[in-house]
């Protein structure tokens, strides 16, 4: 008898949960719970915060295991330098919402593949400094970046639908995002752990950029908020 009740409760909860967390409706049915633009922004910003936090954790963990003799910081070169990004709040606000959105998308798209490679490289790395905890975190970061990319793309579509965004935001692919030569691990003959460190350093910076740009975008597009 208790089992029956348990099953009933489970079914009810499942149904209720499903109702509570309704997915975004593709066809825009009336009863669908379509999240508003503000909700989308919140979700995306939350995700970007998490991404940046993870990148920071992983980077500081890497820094703990670095040899003190490493002095290549000054020569670090991030492969995202091809993407022109505003480096100031005023610049970002001056850029305009369409370009800002495009920059965000470019960044996210550009980081998809390198992060995947990073994870693969880290998991194969035999360096004792690199533990599995780090490789798992790298995998998590890679997943988050992919999700965020999809989320921002959906949000851009919605903004276009709503009319708040112009149609100048084009479709961005991995090939078009980075105009310059892509950064590849195989090309470098250096120790992989140092590559990892560089990648993480660069990614930490870029994730902070994405997070900040998204916030500025939200304030720009939703003026009723207190920005």
């Amino acid at each position, binding site marked *: 008898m208790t089992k029956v009740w348990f099953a009933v409760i489970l079914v009810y909860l499942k149904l209720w949960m499903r109702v509570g967390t309704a997915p975004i409706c593709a066809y825009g049915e009336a009863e669908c719970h379509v999240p508003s633009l503000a909700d989308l922004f919140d979700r995306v910003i939350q995700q970007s915060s998490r991404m940046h*936090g993870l990148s920071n954790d992983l980077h500081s963990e890497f*820094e703990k295991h670095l040899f003190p003799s490493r002095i290549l*910081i000054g020569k670090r070169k991030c492969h995202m*330098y091809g993407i022109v990004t505003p480096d*100031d709040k005023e610049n970002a606000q001056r850029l305009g919402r369409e370009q800002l959105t495009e920059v965000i998308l470019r960044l996210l798209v550009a980081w998809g593949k390198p992060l995947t490679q990073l994870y693969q490289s880290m998991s194969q790395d035999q360096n004792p400094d690199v533990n599995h905890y780090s490789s798992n975190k790298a995998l998590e970061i890679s997943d988050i970046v992919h999700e965020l990319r999809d989320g921002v793309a959906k949000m851009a579509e919605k903004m276009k639908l709503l009319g708040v965004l112009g149609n100048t935001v084009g479709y961005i692919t991995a090939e078009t995002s980075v105009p310059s030569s892509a950064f590849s691990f195989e090309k470098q003959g250096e120790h992989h752990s140092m590559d990892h460190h560089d990648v993480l350093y660069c990614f930490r910076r*870029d994730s902070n950029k994405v997070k900040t740009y998204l*916030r500025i975008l939200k304030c720009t597009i939703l003026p009723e908020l207190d920005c």
Partner: protein
Amino acid sequence: MAVSSSLSNLLLLVLMTSLDWLSTPGSAFLLDRHHIHSLAPSEPHFTECVSRDQATFRCWWSPGNFHNLSYPGALRVFYLKKEGISHTSEWKECPEYNYSDRECFFDANHTSIWTRYCMQLRTQNNVTYYDDDDCFTVENIVRPDPPVSLNWTLLKISPSGQSYDIKVNWEPPPSADVKSYWMRLEYEIQYRDKNTTHWESLAMVPQTQQTIYGLDIEKEYEVHIRCRMHAFTKFGQFSDSLFILVTEIPNKESTFPITLVFVFGVTGVVIVILLIVVSQQHRLMMILLPPVPVPKIKGIDPEMLKKGKLDELNFFLSGGGMGGLPTYAPDYYQDEPWVEFIEVDAEDAEAGEKEENNQSSDTQRLLGLPQPVSHHTNTGCSNAISFPDDDSGRASCYDPDLPDQDALLLMATLLPGQPEDRESTLDVADRAPPAPERGLLENPLLVQTQSQSGGPRTWVNTDFYAQVSNVMPSGGVVLSPGQQLRIQEEEEEKKKKGNNGPRDTEAKKQQELPFQLLVVDPEGSGGYTTESYNNAQRQIISSTPSPPPGSPRPGEYQTIVQPQPASSTEENQCPYIVPDSPQPAQFFAPVADYTVVQEVNSQHSLLLNPPPRHSPPPCLPQHALKALPAMPIGYITPDLLENFSP
């Protein structure tokens, strides 16, 4: 390797703290501990570069041991901004100097986030002191200003009154642009007891409020807060301290007496209720559990019935012992030995408050249990079956042997075939009268029986139960018929005729026919009297001091015992009593309950006291008779019923 790095860092720390100008606020290491300072500690170097709002930043330098370079302007700051693809960016000089603080301030125009800056010190002679590690990106050097407007509110006080919780709230630093989400801050609260030196830290929160639990009263606490950018490592300075002191809490005292009053009030109410319950116990029991009336036969002790003392019961029923009708004028019936009397003595009755224990006395009185005096004294008083000092109503005495026979016969007729011994009757008679009954029979009833001399004793067709059908106010109990009794009664009948007017003229007729045994109770509460409409019936009325005049009142007991004519040779017997006679209600016969069914006539009527076959009954109700076997018991059983079928 980590040990050496930490050692070098320790050396640097020692060196730095030894210098005076390191006490400037906001000074910290430019480099984190994991980097080796390529420059010698004594050379001019940058101490720290800090941004407060992620839009501007400052750098401080130090000449080191080169005191000749400590004058303003000796050292110049150059920076390199590495941006874009090209590395052709050049060193630029600090946009704004502050020589007094040895600070280089970069305003918003010169500040780019996510861009690497490298700092360099140059002397007038273009001697460059540069460290590759002195490069940074602005977002990594952000140390937000401390929060402002600290405030606290009391949340809750523990029940013991010794500890409390507070909620601390504050405002973000005004320099940080948190509104537009340019900067996302996290806050860390630390508090300590003012007397101690150890600070307690709470978890980082992004909100501008936090609760501190478990502070003790009468202890002064110091609270300060610092913040940092989310997902970054560098904290800002601590805010100004907030001092908290909570002295004794008055609320506790006010609740104490209220609790005490409440407790006492409840206890008092409970005690009062208990007192009420205890004092009114009987009443409450009566209300809650009213006593169920038990069936009682007036005059018969239910204890006797319970314990199965059949002998005594028979004796009682037969009129032995104390109870009894007042003796009638025995002179009337001297000639007729079949007349038996039940005497009721009104004087002996004790009209105390009535409980069941009075039943036996009433029973004895009712049935006129013979007293030992009566048996032993060979006086001519046949009414010796009475209370020792009872002489009321006794006109004459009978022969000595008569009382015995009378008593015996009475008992015999009353009892279902159980011959009573003289001894038993004596025993019963010797029994002291118990306490009087509850107002039903005031006078002990004296039963005096006059039986036909030499008459065979037949105990056939005698009722075991003689129902009291009526009670006379004079104290007599009218019993429903026992068939075998023959009581002579002439004068008493006539006397009672006067008393019981509505009773019909049967009493006047002096016949040797069945009679009625009357036990009259002056106080009786009975409601009905036995019908006696037989011509031959006699009535024995209690010889009360004041025989009630007039008709029998509702409070009268009349025991009318109708003798069985079969055992006698009397004629004109109309022995049976028809319950539905047209007589008035005062002589209504409850015969049906306790009467032995003798015969069933052709009309399927149950004859209770059918007349003998040889003499057709002259009475009104005339029914055909059928011979019936003797019924020793008063109730008809199913197998006996078969005999009744015509």
